[in-house]
């Protein structure tokens, strides 16, 4: 029913498009004048109005009706039913929904079957109702819009305005989602900081969220589990630095080669190959790190008498660096190539060698873009999780030694949130506090990076 409604509404729109177009054509013929806008805009205006708002309405309804049904089911639950906690209720509702969808596990109780039956009927009614409303709306909006179509109606301006509204909505979606994410993280973090003091979280040197239980919730003493986030951030910092010290030089120098020295043919082969690196899933890098690189480092370290942990920051950081190379090189290559040839000619014409031209003219001119590519690399490194989980371990050691096992913020968030957990415990909530801190740190990093770019930007046309 619902898919049919989508199709019918679209057909109405197409129909109105031709109606509008023909109408303006006829008016023009009768009055022997030129319309303000091209005929196509007189068709588009009613078409857009008859398709877009009704379909938005329909989609919203589909999203919202489950909430209404749940409320209606809740009112019809048997009175003698004893419900413990919010979770049980949600599970009950899910069970009824499943029965209505035809997924029946075991022998459900009689009242559940009845409610499921009712739910099926409600859904049918709701679908019919909204389909009718949508189609009526579609006609109404479309015909209303059609009544505007006249010789001096500024249809182009109207259509452009509608499209602009569409563009605004699209850009708002991204912004609102970001704000939503930040706020949800903030609220959960506040709950966490009620359980664990913020200074302990920010300055504590031990991260040990296990053994949550009576100790903190009951007596309020610092007890068994500790939430000092410093080791995690130090681990993130360490691994990111290792990753960047691999990816930035290698990426930048390969970008210089590709853009300044490589012939067209070599570039045509190398660049796609490098970009394939960016397409490899991080899990694959993860086991490459864990199964190939980490043992290699351990054995090599053993040969020269170094004690390398089997899961080391070095292995994870190194492989992460390899992963980031294409981001740095591909973006830097683009910005270096965007430096105008006239600047290279100027430098060469003054008797610069190729290397002087690159070092003193091309790279400074490309600096803002290069910094941007490095910022991207940093945020990839800080946000990367999989490689760390697989290759660097989960031990929250406070260590700057790249040969030790360390862990990062994101890897901890994953381990905290994987599997079953209670939503009320400090352990679960700590994931949000970690996320919030991470967001703030990356924001600060980006801010400073942008300031640097602004300061050293060398403008060229």
């Amino acid at each position, binding site marked *: 029913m619902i898919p049919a409604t989508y199709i019918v509404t679209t057909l109405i729109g197409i129909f109105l498009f031709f109606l509008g177009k023909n109408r303006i054509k006829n008016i023009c013929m009768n009055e022997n004048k030129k319309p303000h806008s091209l005929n196509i805009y007189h068709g588009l205006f009613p078409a857009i109005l008859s398709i877009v708002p009704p379909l938005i309405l329909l989609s919203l309804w589909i999203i919202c009706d489950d909430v209404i049904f749940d409320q209606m089911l809740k009112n019809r639950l048997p009175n003698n039913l004893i419900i413990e906690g919010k979770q049980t209720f949600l599970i009950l509702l899910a069970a009824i929904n499943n029965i209505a969808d035809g997924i029946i596990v075991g022998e459900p109780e009689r009242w559940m079957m009845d409610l499921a039956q009712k739910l099926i009927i409600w859904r049918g009614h709701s679908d019919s109702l909204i389909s009718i409303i949508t189609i009526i709306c579609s006609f109404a909006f479309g015909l209303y819009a059609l009544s505007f179509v006249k010789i001096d109606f500024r249809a182009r301006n109207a259509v452009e305005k509608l499209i602009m509204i569409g563009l605004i909505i699209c850009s708002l979606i991204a912004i609102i989602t970001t704000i939503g994410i930040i706020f949800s993280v903030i609220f959960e973090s506040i709950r966490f900081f009620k359980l664990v003091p913020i200074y302990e979280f920010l300055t504590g040197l031990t991260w040990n969220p296990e053994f949550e239980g009576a100790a903190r919730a009951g007596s309020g003493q610092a007890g068994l589990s500790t939430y000092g986030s410093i080791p995690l951030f130090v681990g993130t910092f360490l691994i990111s630095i290792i990753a960047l010290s691999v990816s930035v030089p290698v990426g930048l120098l390969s970008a210089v080669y590709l853009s300044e020295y490589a012939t067209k043919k070599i570039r045509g082969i190398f660049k796609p190959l490098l970009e394939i690196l960016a397409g490899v899933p991080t899990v694959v890098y993860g086991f490459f790190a864990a199964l190939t690189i980490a043992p290699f480092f351990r054995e090599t370290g053993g040969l020269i008498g170094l004690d390398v942990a089997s899961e080391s920051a070095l292995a994870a950081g190194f492989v992460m660096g390899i992963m980031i190379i294409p981001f740095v090189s591909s973006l830097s290559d683009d910005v270096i190539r965007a430096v105008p040839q006239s600047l290279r000619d100027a430098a060469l014409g003054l*008797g610069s060698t190729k290397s002087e031209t690159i070092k003193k003219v091309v790279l400074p001119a490309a600096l803002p873009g290069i910094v941007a590519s490095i910022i991207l690399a940093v945020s990839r490194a800080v946000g990367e999780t999989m490689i760390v989980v697989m290759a660097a371990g989960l031990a929250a050691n406070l260590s700057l030694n790249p040969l030790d096992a360390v862990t990062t913020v994101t890897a901890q968030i994953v381990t905290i949130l994987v599997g079953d957990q209670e939503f009320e415990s400090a352990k679960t909530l700590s994931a949000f506090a970690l996320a919030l801190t991470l967001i703030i740190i990356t924001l600060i990093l980006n801010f400073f990076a942008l300031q640097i770019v602004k300061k050293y930007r060398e403008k060229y046309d």
Partner: protein
Amino acid sequence: MTETVESIVNCKNVSVYYGQKKAINNISIDIGRRSITAFIGPSGCGKSTFLRTINRMNDTIDSCRIEGTVIVDGKDIYDPSIDVVPLRAKVGMVFQKPNPFPKSIYENVAYGPRIHGLASNKSELDDIVEKALKGAGLWNEARDRLDESGTSLSGGQQQRLCIARTIAVEPQIILMDEPCSALDPIATSNIEDLMSDLAKEYTIIIVTHSMQQAARVSQKTAYFHLGNLIEYGDTKEIFVRPKDSQTEAYISGKIG
């Protein structure tokens, strides 16, 4: 007016190819020291290509190949033993579109002396920069804003900055590839005055679309057409009594 001047550039049977296409066809020409020579001709006639063979800027184009000999100041510049770096320091170039580096005015001028190690300390470098800016007639306008970006100047000032940047390396020859085509008439006339001053010390070869400009500034003019050097001689002669009918047609505005 026609005194014999000592020549500094001697080209013999020079041909330039882009891939299979012949852009310059067997040109021989001698260019006099401390004078202004203009290359004129319709678009695509090869005058810029020929200009760029004199400081080997064509090397930057992969498909480009050169035959014949180009002798600058007594040396064959296409001899394998020649290094292009000192050659380009000796033969400076000013381009069609002003192309200052996105650096400060000071740094723009100091760039050349720095890479060639012409100054041993800061005050020497300051002197070179000041002298070059004075030479390019930009000192009065730029002395108080040496730290500002070169790109913040107006088009004509930018072009004079490019000239200052070129003469800071103390070249013997300055090649100018349509240096005024992106400038307004006032800036153009400033640059033309400057060229006449510079010709006392430097050899200037200018490619130009404007016949009036060639007539105003140059002592000698070469007319190019389809990769051939049609006529070369004293500017006055060429403009008043062209020997070749093609030159006459171009100068009188019938082709071009």
